[in-house]
């Protein structure tokens, strides 16, 4: 069944976007990425050290996966904008996963700085994919600012707490004119399936795979979870009922 994910005119057959953080080494990461079936994967930008590059870009290139640089670690709009511009220069892509974290303990998005940075980067010609709170009003404002997608969290980064406010995700999906990508908080495959059942266009996750006991197996689980959730969303689930309804004939 042909059901591509389309972001800013780019088509992907996989609806699972991966992160590369947390993997013990590149060999483990490679097996997990292949098992996930992902075609778009995030990288971070950091100061170069004497050892040279990390090899992650070369790995993604070899696997045919598009890199999506992020601005993780930035606390202000100004820092995020500079990091995004550096990412564009370093990677030769104008796609940016925009993250502005309010503080280190929660890593929650700072909505004021986020919207400010998004507007600046859209004016710069970037394709902006913002990591945002599960706030339908903010999601709408980000879309109005010209973002190519909105990426609400299920729960804080790395917590594995799943989707804490499914109704907010549904509200965001109901009014969005751009893809809604559930980003952060996924713990296991059923969380990824739920995100898709709620109508999300894709799921972005890293920790739940890279820090799993068996990252390759969990990556495969996530791939199936996303596919199952997407199919279920399109299949029209039965209404929930208070009383039983027999599924076998009475006689």
């Amino acid at each position, binding site marked *: 069944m042909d059901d591509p994910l389309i972001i800013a005119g780019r088509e992907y057959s996989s609806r699972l976007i991966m992160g590369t953080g947390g993997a013990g080494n590149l060999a483990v990461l490679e097996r997990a990425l292949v098992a996930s079936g992902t075609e778009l994967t995030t990288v971070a930008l950091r*100061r170069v050290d004497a050892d040279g590059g990390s090899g992650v870009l070369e790995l993604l290139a070899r696997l045919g996966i598009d890199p999506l640089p992020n601005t993780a670690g930035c606390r202000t709009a100004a820092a995020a904008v500079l990091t995004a511009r550096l990412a564009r220069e370093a990677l030769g892509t104008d796609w940016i996963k925009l993250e502005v974290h309010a503080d280190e303990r929660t890593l929650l998005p700072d909505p004021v700085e986020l919207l400010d940075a998004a507007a600046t980067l859209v004016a710069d010609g970037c394709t902006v994919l913002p990591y945002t709170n599960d706030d339908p009003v903010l999601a709408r404002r980000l879309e109005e600012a010209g973002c190519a997608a909105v990426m609400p969290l299920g729960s804080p980064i790395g917590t594995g707490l799943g989707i804490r406010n499914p109704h907010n995700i549904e509200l965001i999906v109901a009014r969005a004119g751009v893809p809604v990508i559930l980003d952060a908080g996924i713990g296991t495959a059923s969380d990824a399936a739920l995100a898709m059942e709620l109508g999300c266009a894709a799921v972005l996750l890293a920790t739940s795979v890279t820090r799993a006991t068996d990252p390759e197996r969990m990556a495969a689980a996530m791939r199936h979870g996303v596919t199952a959730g997407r199919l279920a969303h399109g299949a029209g689930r039965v209404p929930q009922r208070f009383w039983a309804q027999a599924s076998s004939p009475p006689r």
Partner: protein
Amino acid sequence: MRVVVNGVEHALADGSTVADLLRVIGVAPTGVAVALDGQVVPRNQHQGTEIPAGAEVEVLTAVQGG
């Protein structure tokens, strides 16, 4: 002259360009991005951009993350 590169002070010949700096610190220009006092220096301007004394330079590259 002294410049600060990724938070560490370096001695650099007067009139050095961004391209010179990358050579001195042993970093290939592909896959990296350079900010000079908070402004991105595009790769095609590395040769022609002189670093002023006391400048703060950031040299970044992609790593695992997100």
